[in-house]
Structures are given as C-alpha cells and as structure tokens.
C-alpha cells in the first residue's frame, strides 16, 4: 500500500517517461547493475519505481546512508519499501567498504542501481566515473551492466533543496555494456560514461 502510494507520488512529481532503447529486455536469469548519471536524491528510487514489477522486486538502489537513515520516514521507506543498500559516504573502513557491500548483494542474486560518479553533480554535465563500477565489473563479469540516462531530476530536487518541484523527467535505458577482456580501468570507465552520455535525448 505504502509502496503504491510512494510510487504514485513519484509519478506525480516526475511524470517519469521511460524509454527502453536496448535491443532486448534485461535477462531475468542474470543480475543487473543499472548505472546512471547522478544529480538528485530521487535518482535511485525513480529508476527503481519505473522498472517492471518482476525486475523491481529483485532490484535494490544504492543510496547514501547519511541521507536515507536520517529520519524515521526516510528510514522506513529505504528499508521496507525499496530495500536500499545504504552505503557510507564519509567514514569508509575495510568492513563497511561500499564495493564489498555491493558484491554481497549481487552474490545474493539481487540487482543494483548504482551511480558511478559517486556524488551528485549539478545536473548539466556528467562527472568523471569513479573506480567503483570497474571493481564491480571485474568481480562480477556475469552481470548485465545497463546504462541509464536521467534527465531533469536535478530540477525536481536539486542539491541542497529539501522540497521537490514537479517536472517531467525522462529515463532512458540503453543496451547492456559489452565487456572487453583485459580492458584497462580508465578506458572502461571512459567507455561506461560514454554509454550513459549517448542516451541523452535530443529535444
């Protein structure tokens, strides 16, 4: 019930228009890592909310612990409704290292929504991808790495704002990124970033 209300509310706020440009739908027998440009706290939950039900039930957004753990309601949403994988942004130790956490989720057969830039950008440009995505790819080459481009979300809830403003957002899902054996880290990250950028739709 709360799940439905939450997704309905997100719809009303964002109008979420979804485009699947990939040649085929995500393989249900594999786990997926959806990676996208990051400009708002709503990014992860919006991607989660537009996935078809069978994919959604096994997909967990990666989100910042300090934001989603803060208040009772956010904590409830992140744990009970969309089962976020909350990662530490400031105090990383060996035990709670994000990559380790994410690998455990993939091992458990769940999919992830992941933001390789790490922190939220201003929305106009996509920042440099950090090495996290490369770590995942080397440990989990069997997963499908699906690029997603998010448009306008930075305007719905910009960095530093608490209250959202409704705007129509678009989400564009691309083809899974083909993996090239022995590809260098920076080449791979560059290619992954390009894959997200090419999904940017021309008005």
């Amino acid at each position, binding site marked *: 019930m709360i799940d439905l209300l939450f997704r309905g509310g997100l719809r009303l706020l964002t109008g979420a228009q979804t485009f699947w440009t990939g040649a085929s739908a995500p393989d249900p027998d594999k786990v997926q890592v959806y990676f996208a440009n990051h400009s708002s706290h709503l990014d992860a939950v919006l991607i989660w909310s537009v996935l078809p039900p069978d994919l959604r039930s096994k997909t967990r957004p990666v989100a910042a612990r300090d934001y989603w753990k803060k208040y009772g309601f956010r904590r409830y949403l992140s744990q009970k409704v969309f089962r976020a994988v909350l990662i530490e942004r400031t105090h990383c130790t060996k035990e709670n290292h994000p990559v380790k956490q994410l690998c455990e989720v993939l091992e458990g057969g769940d999919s992830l929504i992941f933001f390789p830039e790490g922190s939220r950008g201003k929305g106009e440009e996509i920042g440099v991808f950090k090495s996290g995505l490369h770590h995942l790819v080397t440990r989990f080459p069997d997963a499908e790495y699906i690029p997603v481009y998010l448009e306008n979300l930075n305007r719905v809830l910009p960095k530093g704002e608490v209250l959202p*403003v*409704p*705007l129509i957002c678009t989400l564009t899902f691309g083809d899974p990124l083909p993996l090239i054996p022995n590809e260098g880290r920076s080449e791979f990250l560059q290619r992954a970033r390009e894959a997200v950028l090419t999904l940017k739709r021309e008005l």
Partner: protein
Amino acid sequence: MDPQLKILLAVLFLLLGIASVIGWVLEKRNQQSNAVIRNLNARIKAWWVMCLFFSLAVLLGPKMTLALFTLMSFLALREFVTLIAPGRGDHRSLFWAFFVITPIQYYLIGIGWYGMSMIFIPVYGCLWMPIRNALAGDTENYMARTALVQWALMVCVYFVSHAPALLFLKIPGYVDQNAKILFFLVIVVQMSDVLQYVWGKTLGKHPIAPALSPGKTIEGFVGGILSASLVGMAMYRITPFSWWQAGLFSLLICIMGFFGGLVMSAIKRDRGVKDFGSFIEGHGGMLDRIDSIIFSAPLFFHLVRFYFS
C-alpha cells in the same frame, strides 16, 4: 439526477460509441496499418477516458469537479514548467506555485468567494513570485524567469479555474443545474477542436497561420467554428440561455478556443517541441488538450456572470 444531464450523457456516450465503431471498421477495412487511422483510434480511446473521468467527476458533485480541475492545473503547470526549464533560483517560488498557490486558488473557487478568487493570483500570487525569486538571490535572467513563473500561474491555474467556477455562479431559475453550463462549455470547445480538425483534413487548403501552426487552415477554422457553434446552439435547452444567446456564446467560445490553440502553438514553436507532453495517447499533453478551454473559460464565465447572475 437532473433528467437533462442524463440525456446529455446518453447522447455523449452514444456518439463516442459510434465513433469507436467507425474507427474499428476503418481499421478492419485497411489491412496494411495506416498511421492516420491508428492516430484516430488512439484519439477516440483517449476521448472515452477523458469523457468518463469528466462525467464521473461532475456527477459526484462540485467538490470532485474542483479536485479534477486542480489535478488538471497541476499537470498543466508541470508540463509548462518543464518546457521553460527553470533555473536554480526559481525552485522555491515554483514550490509555492505548485503546492500553495494552486490549492488556495481552487479552495477560493470552492467556497464561492468570488472577489478573492478573482484577484488572488493576479495580485497576491504575482506579487509574491518576484519577491520569492528576489529572495533566492539569483539575478541571472531574473526578469524573464520571474515573468515566466507568473505567466505559468496565470495560464495553467488562474484561467483554467474559471471553468469550474461556473459551478458556483448563482443563476436565478437555474438552481443546482450549473453542471450543465460547464458541460456546455467543454463540449462546445472540444467539438470545435474536433470539427476544425475534420474540416481541415477534408477540405483544408489555405493555411491560416503558417508560421505558428501549418496544420490549421482557413477552411478548418470557418467550418469548424460555425459547425461547433451550431452544435452549441442546438444545446440551448440545457442552458439558461435562449437559442440565439447559446449560439453567440458558442461562437465566442470557439473563437477564443481557436486563439488559445494558436497561442499555445506559438509557445511550442518558441521552444521547438511538437507537443507539451505525452500524457494522453494521441493527444500529446494536458496543455495540448485544454489550450482552448484556457482561453475561452474566463470570457465565458464573466459574460455569463454579468448577464445572467
């Protein structure tokens, strides 16, 4: 239930049923799929949904109708604001526009406070928007940004709210029947759109505003507006007007509706988009559907109020 309203709804859904049958036959006859027919059928289907929603809201009473129009304003504002691509400095004032000013406007309409509902957005809303934007401290394009927010409120909320305001007019000898004037307005305006499209597609040759909307023709304009006015005139029994008054009102509604479409086309051209959104399949966005109501509702409302209440 008002017996006239019953007949009105019966006729409305009968016509929709006939349209659906025609669309179905056309699709069966054409084996290879035809874009025009597919678009026609998508439109007919959308008409069913829109008519069902609208009729249901009106039948459930003025409060539900107001709720429906509030939602329509909200969606229209969302499309409009998306198109003007606001900057960071507009964020807070837009929050006010969506979540404070819009609900208050419809609340004022709902309690029947005529004076306040007529000045709330033009005076208080339009004073507060520039103040809030100034407080945000972003001076880049300040005037243009502020004017856009003000205009968004006027077009998507203020003008639209005149349509449900018809429900709260007190017309002597026409107590508790106002829903039918709202139906009259909406049917005439939408018939005008449909008939302009039909006349334009069949006989249209000479473009009327090539720079704004290449699809609109003089033949479509004249044919559509005159035939829709005749439809309006034929509906005079459900209104408090005489037949010639209903005809004149219809003519006015159709002409203003046409201008509404033209103004919205100019905005879309300016921003380089074809439709405001893809909210309604085959129709584009909410604003594409209600552009003609936005411009005809205020004039119709004030004339009815002036002469009849």
